[in-house]
């Protein structure tokens, strides 16, 4: 039963019968619209009936939401009304919604063609014809519609009525009375955002050049691109041999972050291939030049100093992923582009795991002593969160709004702002004094919880093992063994923090749970 109710497109019902609680029904939309700015172009000619069409492609999830928000709406009333309609003969239905009425002007204005467009009258006619084609053949139509919705367990009557409402959608014929009610009950502005239209006019279309060019027209940008490689005129095997040879001297040079590897011999090397191209595919010459002139590889980043890494992490802690701010205030030696590149490489290293665990701990702590900065929350929240409700974005004007991570963040930051009191300076002090201790306690707790739960979290375990090396620079056993005065809290927080992370991961990669 519940599923059947879900599938009744609520706004459609609103058009067909005077619903008892239209305000409750509108609630979800109010929520959405309040958070969005109105679209820049508002289509005044919009006819509300178009939302019926949109709704035909509705999916169940938002309806779930709407249902939850509807509260006092009585679905039984709607159902019985719709069932009545569903049982009506087709002619009656058409008459009821003014389809048979030749005087109904709405018929043409509510055509599926864009009202804004300066289309020819044929558009409407064709659509009407389409509808009629479906109309004449009622038994076929019904069965087709049954099948359209055949994944929904429902009684024949309910199917019938979904067929009827579908038909209503196609004929799109709200009576005048409904029209007035609509205007009264919700603002047309909101309806305008239901469905967007393709705009027509000189402000929207591209200007198409007339006719075709001749091929002897000058190439406008002929020399502004740069050919880096062209595979012609040499056998592939030759390339591979060349690449292997070309990479030999570089293996010793390779350094940078810990990810530099020598395991794949036939990795394409942009510089080497470009050199070969410049040498006119003369392998010997290219190799000779390469040996002569050993350039540091530019495709991997030049090495970051420990200080730069530290500053970067500090910056991330302070500004979140605002790389411009980090560049301006923390890592002036690098361009914003380099910071972005570094961030994505750093994100999958042990340093990041340590950073994140530490951040998580701090988050836990500062919920007891509120005042944590937005950015840290943000950073954590952006760690992968399983997403849901993607099939509908609550605001058709905004693509980003559908982002589940964003939605969650908005809620959390609202909650957070309610109990934020402490000043940032205090925070900074606390962090300085507690930073070292918290790293230590993550170490002990994470190791324990990982082995207990039997979940493979190799990354964080290895992060812990090497933690002594990367951060303290010396004795890791001391780090693991030492307990600070508030270590009990830390250990507890550490466990929950780590297992939080694992939950996220598991949700994303179900196969990770062995």
């Amino acid at each position, binding site marked *: 039963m519940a599923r059947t109710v879900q599938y009744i497109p609520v706004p459609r019902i609103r058009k067909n019968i005077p619903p008892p609680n239209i305000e409750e029904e509108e609630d979800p939309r109010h929520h959405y619209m309040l958070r969005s700015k109105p679209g820049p172009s508002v289509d005044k000619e919009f006819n509300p009936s178009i939302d019926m069409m949109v709704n035909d492609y509705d999916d169940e999830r938002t309806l779930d939401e709407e249902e939850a928000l509807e509260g006092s709406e009585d679905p039984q009333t709607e159902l019985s009304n719709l069932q009545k309609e569903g049982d009506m003969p087709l002619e009656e239905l058409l008459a009821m919604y003014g389809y048979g009425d030749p005087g109904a002007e709405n018929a043409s204005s509510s055509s599926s063609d*864009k009202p804004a467009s300066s289309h*020819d009258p044929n558009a409407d006619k064709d*659509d009407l014809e389409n509808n009629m084609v479906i109309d004449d053949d009622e038994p076929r139509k019904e069965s087709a519609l049954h099948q359209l919705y*055949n994944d929904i367990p429902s009684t024949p009557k309910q199917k019938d009525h979904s067929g009827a409402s579908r038909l209503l959608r196609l004929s799109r014929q709200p009576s005048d009375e409904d029209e007035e009610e609509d205007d009264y009950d919700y603002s047309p502005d909101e309806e305008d955002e239901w469905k967007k239209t393709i705009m027509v006019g000189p402000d929207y279309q591209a200007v198409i050049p007339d006719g075709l060019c001749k091929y002897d027209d000058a190439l406008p940008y002929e020399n502004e691109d740069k050919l880096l490689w062209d595979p012609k005129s040499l056998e592939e095997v030759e390339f591979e041999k060349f690449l292997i040879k070309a990479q030999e001297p570089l293996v010793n040079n390779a350094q940078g972050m810990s990810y530099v590897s020598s395991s794949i011999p036939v990795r394409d090397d942009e510089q080497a291939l470009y050199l070969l191209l410049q040498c006119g595919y003369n392998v010997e010459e290219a190799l000779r030049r390469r040996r002569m002139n050993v350039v540091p590889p530019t495709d991997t980043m030049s090495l970051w100093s420990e200080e730069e890494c530290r500053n970067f992490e500090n910056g991330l802690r302070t500004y979140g992923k605002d790389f*411009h701010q980090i560049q301006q205030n923390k890592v002036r030696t690098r361009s914003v582009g380099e910071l972005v590149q570094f961030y994505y490489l750093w994100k999958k290293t042990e340093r990041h795991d340590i950073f994140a665990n530490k951040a998580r701990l701090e988050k836990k702590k500062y919920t007891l002593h509120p005042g944590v900065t937005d*950015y840290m929350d943000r950073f954590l929240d952006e760690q992968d969160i399983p997403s849901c409700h993607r099939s509908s974005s609550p605001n058709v004007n905004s693509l980003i709004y559908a982002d589940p991570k964003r939605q969650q963040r908005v809620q959390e930051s609202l909650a957070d702002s309610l109990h934020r009191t402490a000043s940032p300076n205090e925070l900074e002090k606390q962090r300085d004094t507690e930073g070292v201790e918290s790293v230590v306690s993550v170490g002990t707790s994470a190791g324990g919880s990982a082995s207990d739960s039997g979940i493979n979290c190799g990354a964080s375990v290895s992060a812990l093992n090497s933690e002594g090396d990367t951060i303290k620079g010396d004795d890791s056993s001391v780090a693991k063994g030492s307990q600070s005065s508030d270590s009990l809290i830390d250990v507890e927080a550490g466990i929950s923090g780590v297992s939080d992370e694992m939950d996220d991961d598991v949700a994303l990669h179900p196969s990770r749970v062995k």
Partner: protein
Amino acid sequence: MSKKTVSYFYSPDVGNFHYGPGHPMKPHRLSVIHSLVMNYGLYKKMQIYRPYRASAHDMCRFHSDDYIDFLQRVTPQNLQTYTKYLSHFNVGDDCPVFEGLFDFCSMYTGASLEGAMKLNHNSCDIAVNWSGGLHHAKKFEASGFCYVNDIVIAVLELLKYHARVLYIDIDVHHGDGVQEAFYLTDRVMTVSFHKYGNYFFPGTGDMYEIGAESGRYYSVNVPLKEGIDDASYVQVFKPVIQYVMEFFQPTAIVLQCGADSLANDRLGCFSLSTKGHGECVRFVRDLNVPLLTVGGGGYTLRNVARCWTYETSLLIDEQISNELPYTEYLEYFAPDFTLHPDAVTRQENANSKQYLEWIVKHVYDNLKMIQHSPSVQMHDIPADTLASTDHDQDEDNADPDVRISQLDEDRRIEPASEFFDGDKDQDKNEDSNEI
């Protein structure tokens, strides 16, 4: 059939932009893809270009001067002085002003534009620009993470030499910017497959949006419901494209490969696997029409990277192993480290077979309304001077005793609308005459 020449356009810096904290669009996915392409050894099998950067002038071939001027001037620092323009140009949440915004636009637009030029001059059969495909941008405003519509600009370039250009869009979102730009013309057909309804962005893409004026029936929309899987998608995609080819007979194709139609995308709701998505690309490649392939949406970084790497391999017709090669980004592909992980999705397929059949029929019925192909088709296509010079030389060398040399025969391009089997398909067989 011999392999096609594939040109690959990549700016090494295009991945090093960031839309801002919490924004799902991550240009760095482009660096990850490039790294995979190199480490799979696909790089050396393509022509590689460091593309030209599009100028403001190039962008104004489609966009308004005001808008491009704004994009050129605005930075995160001077944002305050432009507040009144922000909402006018729809710059804000979805389309933030970030460091290097105009550089980013000029890189991805330049690459698409140049891809189109290379196709125009027959220097390749397939051009690939994964950084392009920003199909929501409008003439006067930004939209849906897109600022400059590189597709429209590339299509305009193709129209210089091609009578009819087909645009295909397999992003989960409707390709509204491209459709709107060419809504009134019969020289560009736009075909978009997308999730439609229930507030899903951008709210256009109804099946009844078919174009207007001369462009009537030249916009094709295939609205789908959430959760569509490989089998269902292909069931719609192939016949629709087949019909489109039959009725429209394009001489160039632009394929937008938005990867947010993959399962588990951060913003998408379809259930395609990389193989299913790639099947569409393979199908379009096999149409043997000059092809510009661009990227688009795709918000789960690891899956986008897998998808477009795989599709690069399809375009150059190379098999690549399911096991990912070592790259500096390998950790992103945990835990399986494969190219084609099992697509685990909890999204139910809401598209019934009947619904899909019905949509295909609807598309077919509309395409049938294209009585005559557009007027441009009737014009002579100007001779390609470069090619004709070659041809003259060939003629000089040709054996005068042979009436139609093998070379000539190979070069002769038969319109797809011709129904005779060849020169020998005549009512009276020449062989029998000789007797």
